[in-house]
């Protein structure tokens, strides 16, 4: 039973660290602000939850677990809120995602051209 709990703690901590590091890599590798905020905020909540769950499993059921649960609750309430406020502030300031705009602009041009060609075809 004790060995089982130790394995569970290991799994939780390793997975939490893994998600955190993946989020950090995403922070560096992603091309623009919105994709970066996606990578950061999602892995923030999941990685933090797994690490805190691992610590809680290790400590057993006492006051420490209550404090860990408080941290967990607080991070779960504030981390998505903070990410939402940040992205909304950036969007309302008119920060564009250059790659996305370029890609959708090119796609729109191709579609307009195709539509125009189809109409010409009907006209003839």
């Amino acid at each position: 039973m004790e060995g089982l709990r130790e394995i569970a703690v290991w799994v939780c901590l390793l997975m939490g660290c893994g998600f955190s590091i993946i989020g950090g890599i995403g922070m560096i590798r992603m091309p623009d602000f919105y994709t970066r905020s996606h990578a950061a905020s999602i892995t923030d909540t999941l990685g933090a939850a797994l690490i805190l769950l691992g610590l809680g499993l290790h400590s057993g059921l006492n006051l420490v677990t209550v404090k860990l649960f408080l941290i967990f609750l607080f991070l779960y309430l504030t981390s998505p809120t903070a990410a939402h406020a940040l992205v909304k502030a950036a969007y309302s300031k008119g920060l564009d995602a250059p790659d996305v705009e370029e890609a959708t602009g090119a796609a729109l041009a191709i579609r307009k051209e195709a539509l125009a060609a189809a109409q010409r075809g009907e006209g003839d």
Partner: protein
Amino acid sequence: MNMFVVATLGVLITMVFALVRAFLGPTVYDRVLAANMFGTKTVLLIAVAGFLTGRPEWLDLAILYALMNFTGMIALLRFSKFANLASDEQLK
């Protein structure tokens, strides 16, 4: 190897990544995002380091850091949006 050493190292590596983005970040929002991530990872680092040194009382500090991180980021965002700390009239 102690499991808390591994967890501490993982959190520290993530903090380094967040710092790199905070230094590189072309816009102020990238820097705020990186600072927010750094703050969240600070909370985790304090919690894990408390277990590592056998003093889980440090969790109180972690709760305090979580509160400060959220408040500081909202204040910074208001500052960057209104160029001051936003009175009630400006918010309407």
